[in-house]
């Protein structure tokens, strides 16, 4: 129940802040979203505060606080959306592979966009009901339905399409952008209807998951991987495991049976790649290698 601190990866993008001056937008949003709730409280105070008989004031106060939180989210959303429209009109967000350097325009704007989105999304995520989250995603350009539950994991807030009835599992990650070494990769992620993403699974940018398919727990897809519709995928990187027949009717009695664990283990072993060094270097070889390295170093030091 409820994502604990160590799993709360949040819906934040792992933004690397390029320039500190972008924080101005962040503080602006925080400040601007506080103003209407202060106004609300002031009106409420003027209307109902009576020092002799403060009963009415205290009775309706909890509901007001509830409403204040929601208005805070919506005002921050509103101003963030305006800022985003301006920013996007200056430089349109696009997919591609970019340099992870402050000189790269796309990288700078990606960082700026995420800095703007961060405050409203954080606010919405702190609310225990998934309703506000879905509003946030919708406004920021992620195609979702209110039937989706994207609440327990981390979902990037741009270049993602969701179908109906998608479930993103606990602490799993759905990304549309990733930083690898010196590169920033942005690709559109498309997730079809009725897809279930398991706990701790990671969906890399550019993944297409067809409808009615399943990405099992603890598995990872690669960049631009295509998962066919109606299959169960599993492994690192994800591979076909078996057909998803669990959408058929009348399986109530059959389900809940499990085969032999050892047998399934054998099945799994074909899917999980084992990596190990094939060449076992002997002691002599290692000695020679060390000698070579030392000589090279000597040469370098002589040159300088």
């Amino acid at each position, binding site marked *: *129940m*409820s994502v*604990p*601190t*160590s*799993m709360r990866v949040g819906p934040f993008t792992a933004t690397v802040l390029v320039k500190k001056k972008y924080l101005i937008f962040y503080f602006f949003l925080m400040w601007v979203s506080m103003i209407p709730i202060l106004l609300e409280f002031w009106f409420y105070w003027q209307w109902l505060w009576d020092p002799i008989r403060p009963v009415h004031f*205290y*009775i309706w*106060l*909890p*509901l007001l606080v*509830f409403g204040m939180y929601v208005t805070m989210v919506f005002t921050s959303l509103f101003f963030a959306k305006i800022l985003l429209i301006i920013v996007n009109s200056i430089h349109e967000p696009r997919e591609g592979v970019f340099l992870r350097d402050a000189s790269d325009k796309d990288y700078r704007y990606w960082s700026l966009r995420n800095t703007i989105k961060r405050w409203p999304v954080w606010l919405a995520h*702190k609310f*225990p*009901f*998934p*309703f506000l989250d879905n509003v946030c995603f919708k406004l920021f350009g992620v195609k979702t339905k209110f*039937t*989706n*539950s994207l*609440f*327990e*994991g981390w979902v990037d807030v741009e270049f993602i399409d969701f179908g109906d009835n998608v*479930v993103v*599992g*606990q*602490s*799993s990650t759905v990304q549309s952008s990733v930083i690898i070494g010196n590169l920033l990769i942005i690709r559109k992620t498309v997730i079809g209807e009725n897809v*279930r*993403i*398991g*706990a*701790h699974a990671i969906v890399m940018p550019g993944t297409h998951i067809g409808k*009615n398919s*399943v990405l*099992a*727990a*603890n598995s990872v897809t690669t960049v631009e991987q295509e998962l066919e519709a109606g299959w*169960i995928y599993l492994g690192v990187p994800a591979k076909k*495991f*078996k057909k998803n*027949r*669990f*959408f*058929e009717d*009348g*399986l*109530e*009695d*059959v*389900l*809940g*049976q*499990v*085969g032999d*664990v*050892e047998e*399934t*283990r054998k099945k*799994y072993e074909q899917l999980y790649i084992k990596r190990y060094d094939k060449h076992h270097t002997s002691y002599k070889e290692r000695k020679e290698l060390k000698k070579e390295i030392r000589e090279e170093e000597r040469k370098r030091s002589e040159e300088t």
Partner: protein
Amino acid sequence: MEQKKNNLTNQDQKDDLKELALDFTISSAVSRVNIKFLAVYIPIFWLSGLLVGIAFYEFTKNLPPIQENWEAWVITLVLIPFALFSLLFIFIFACTFLSKLFLILINIIHKPKEGVFIAQIGDADFEFWSLRTELKKLVIWLIRNCPLPWIDTLAFRWFGVNMDFSSHLQDSWCDMEFVNFGRNVLIGQGAVVMSSMIVGKYLIIKKVILNDYTVIGGLACVSPGTITGKDSLLGALSSTILNQTLESGWIYFGIPAIKLKQNKLTFITEMTKRSVDDEEAIYFDDGVNIEEDKKKKLNL
């Protein structure tokens, strides 16, 4: 459907069962709830907020005007952090109490039970299951966001997880029904203990039993129906499949978990632990040198 089943030969049926075996793990994170369930939150927020309002009123009501008596103002201002902290806990406990009341009502209307159900709106079991999870989620959300440790054990006990204060699940996800803990169970960071899972069109609810001295590693997944023996250990990043049993005294690892080696460290706990079956404490008082004993038993 029945005609079809009759036509199939035995071999086909076996293959069918193999294909329909649930030998993979998904997740239980279905907070996909109708917006109508938000209606439950509002009374809970409201009533517990009322209590907070009353407490705050009591705290501030006897203040004289500042020109007459400034010392009273200083004292109240000094005590304000303490007051705010206690207000938070009043709010949390009121929420817990109210949602427990709602839960009792809901469970009277529809009793929670294990089994395989259809995960579609219209199925009573599914709808009540999601309503229950949504109700419990509010409280555990509040508790997980406040800095006091050990307090979430209280909430878990209150909402129907059978556990006591020797067990520990500070930093992990745990479904709040059909979970049984023994003594001194330890669950690692980010681990997931699920008693329910949605596979395709079906919702599967099955009891999870974690026996005494079970250790579950970080980021591990425990599927519904898992039963662990005494002193068994599930390694980090590994997961169990539906209805799997972990034998007592073994270390399990992998996806799905298989036996890795015997859990030799259990010999050490033997000295201090209580026997659960008889509910009696076993004490080793005279002449046991723990360090020496460890060395002998571990062959160090």
